[in-house]
């Protein structure tokens, strides 16, 4: 589809006021860092961030910009006093998405939003199967509360970040549209009634497990495979019933950065982290469908595209829905991703200083195999054997069978050995259980469903970028070589930023500056205006 050419993004964003949620998350960080680094003439960015017991919202943002690798390019680009530079552009407002109007009082809401050109709602809880008492306040009610804030705006515009996987059971080719009130299974439903019914379960059921089970059953009945996609889907359907000029951006599986802030940067575990970690175990097969598409998109591509979509939205030219994915133009199959992960493991194990166990496991290549064709060695079998062994060791008292003199001599040591072995088995069982649970949660995405997300809208808008913007903002996923990306970017990024977390360790951020960055020490122009308005 032909799209009108975009003027330079610097012009589109100059002097604009944006209100943003979710900047402390993986995508939000990269998007904010990229915007500030490459479009420094943006007028004002108000960040809605939740304060915590140990740090105010402003302190959280200051620490994030000071120490997160996502902001390295910005810290490098800004010469002089970074605090003053940021104070001239960003304002941090303590907000809680779970509360009506995100917890802003009417005065603050008016002050913040009356001059806003758009709200960019990136916040969301991305756990696959969380307690709905945690996910609904953010992904469902939070979306409503953010949308409600647009009533304070002169031109109410909202860019809402959702997920491609709201498609749920409607597999195959997924178009860039939403049919309000029709679930992925094709059932007509009332989103307000559904939210109320879920909320009643959330309020009345006493345990997280009971809440997860009950709400998950409702999700599956409508055709959403888990609580994450359900809550995001409800958020989209809810928005469609509100009088808001909303544009929805749906990324697929967001993974390590290709170039910004730097190659292979990643935060947290992401979706592929547990899968890749599984491939590093001795299990010979990952239960998955080899020829299904694993739709992956680098975080910096999503970030660039969000900025382009926002530019369109600010100019009143945006489509209603954008899918940010790769599978329709450059698909990577599960079989290929599992093979590349096995090769990444092999290559990583060949580095100097690799442990012997790593070198041995590297030769046990994992494959993508469907559930009905798995080899004998699977996590559930190991879990079962582990449980039996643990029980056996629990019932075993080696001192019983020893003659009295030996009992006195070695009985204590033997009993201790058995106890140690039981502890080791229990630890291994915990790992097996985690793997079994992970595979259950991932099953709809890696085994059961095969989606092809149409991405024509964003590709059309990216193609219409001004020539001067192409170097920074153009990201064409069609030229992405999955082999290079997966081995040199994704695997490297996971090893550096994610696997240590999965093994119970930590990942070091950048050291804070001296003195540590603080926000709000310099008065920005809008503070003066606000003061005048306040007096009036």
């Amino acid at each position, binding site marked *: 589809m032909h799209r009108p050419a975009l003027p330079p993004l610097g012009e589109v964003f100059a002097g604009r006021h944006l209100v943003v949620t979710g900047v402390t998350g993986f995508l939000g960080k990269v998007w904010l860092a990229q915007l500030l680094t490459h479009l420094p003439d943006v007028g004002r960015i108000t960040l809605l961030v939740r304060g915590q017991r140990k740090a105010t919202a402003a302190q959280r943002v200051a620490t994030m910009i000071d120490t997160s690798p996502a902001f390295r390019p910005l810290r490098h680009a800004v010469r002089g006093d970074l605090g003053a530079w940021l104070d001239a552009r960003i304002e941090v407002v303590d907000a809680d998405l779970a509360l009506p109007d995100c917890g802003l009082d009417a005065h603050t809401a008016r002050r913040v939003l009356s001059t806003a050109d758009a709200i960019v709602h990136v916040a969301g809880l991305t756990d696959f199967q969380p307690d709905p008492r945690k996910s609904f306040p953010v992904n469902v009610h939070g979306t409503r509360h953010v949308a409600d804030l647009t009533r304070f705006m002169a031109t109410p515009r909202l860019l809402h970040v959702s997920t491609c996987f709201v498609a749920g059971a409607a597999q195959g080719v997924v178009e860039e549209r939403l049919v309000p009130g029709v679930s992925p299974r094709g059932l007509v439903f009332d989103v307000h009634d559904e939210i109320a019914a879920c909320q009643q379960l959330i309020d009345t059921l006493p345990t997280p497990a009971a809440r997860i089970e009950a709400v998950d059953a409702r999700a599956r009945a409508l055709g959403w495979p888990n609580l994450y996609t359900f809550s995001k889907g409800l958020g989209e359907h809810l928005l469609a019933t509100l009088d808001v000029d909303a544009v929805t951006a749906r990324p697929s599986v967001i993974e390590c950065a290709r170039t910004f802030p730097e190659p292979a940067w990643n935060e947290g575990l992401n979706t592929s982290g547990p899968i890749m970690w599984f491939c590093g175990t001795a299990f*010979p097969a990952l239960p998955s469908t080899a020829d299904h598409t694993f739709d992956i998109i680098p975080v910096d591509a999503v970030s660039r595209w969000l900025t382009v979509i926002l530019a369109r939205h600010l100019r009143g030219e945006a489509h209603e829905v954008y899918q940010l994915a790769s599978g329709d133009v450059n698909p990577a199959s599960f079989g*290929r991703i599992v*093979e*590349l992960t096995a*090769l990444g493991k*092999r*290559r990583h194990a*060949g580095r100097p200083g690799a442990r012997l166990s790593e070198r041995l496991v590297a*030769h046990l*290549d994992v*494959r993508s195999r469907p559930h009905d064709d798995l080899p004998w060695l699977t996590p559930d079998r190991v879990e079962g054997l582990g449980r039996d062994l643990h029980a056996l060791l629990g019932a075993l008292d080696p001192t019983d069978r020893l003659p009295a003199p030996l009992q006195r001599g070695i009985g204590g040591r033997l009993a201790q050995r058995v106890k140690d072995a039981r502890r080791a088995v229990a630890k291994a069982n915990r790992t097996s259980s985690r793997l079994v649970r992970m595979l259950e949660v991932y099953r709809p995405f890696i085994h059961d469903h095969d989606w092809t997300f149409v991405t024509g809208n964003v590709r059309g808008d990216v193609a219409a970028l001004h020539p001067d913007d192409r170097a920074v903002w153009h990201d064409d996923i069609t030229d992405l070589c999955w*082999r290079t990306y997966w*081995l040199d970017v994704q695997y490297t990024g996971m090893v550096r930023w994610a696997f240590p977390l999965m093994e119970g360790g930590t990942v070091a951020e950048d050291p804070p500056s001296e003195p540590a960055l603080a926000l709000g020490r310099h008065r920005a122009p809008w503070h003066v205006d606000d003061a005048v308005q306040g007096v009036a």
Partner: protein
Amino acid sequence: MPAATAAYFRVEGVLVGRRGLSCAAWMAARQHDLVGRLGRLGVALAAAPVGAAGDPLTATRLAWRALKDCTEDRLVVLAAQYWDDRVERAWNPAGVALLERCRAQGDRIVLLSEHPEAVIGPIRGRLGADELVCNHLELASGRLTGRLLDPVFAGVTDGSWVREHARRHGLDPARSRAYGTARADATLLSGVGLPCAVTPDLPLRRLAATFDWPVVEARPES
């Protein structure tokens, strides 16, 4: 103006102390699952006696059958690893010095290798050669079929090969050089005016003595 000259180098033995068959076996041992690996290794190793029996062409074809169904991704990654771990550690300094001397003299540098291009391709840039004659593995839908694309190179077996190559490139075979290391290279050496045996095996050493070809003794780095 006289026709240009070439220097033909057999990669295996002269420049690098590795054989194509050992590369195929190395890769076969790095395929999926243990049983599958053993089977593939068996196929690759079966090529050795076939080659020793005087049929290098069949041996080469058989050796690379061992990689049937290997993904292109695996081939590329293993090939890079093989290059780094094996080829880069097995240069024959004397052979490389000969090549540099020929290049300085203005010879067209032609490398002849039984390795597949996926493995040995980087050698062209690494040594600044003008041409690389080697094998090409056939791919279909991202996987190896186990076949080599024709023409399969397993050493120069046809006496007219050098003449034909020289004619195509306007070269003078009588003033060109060739460097080989095994009996199988004798056809190549006999096709040029300036042959040279580099650390030859016994049969080639005897031939070199018979035809009065110069012999260079050199050992690879590992």
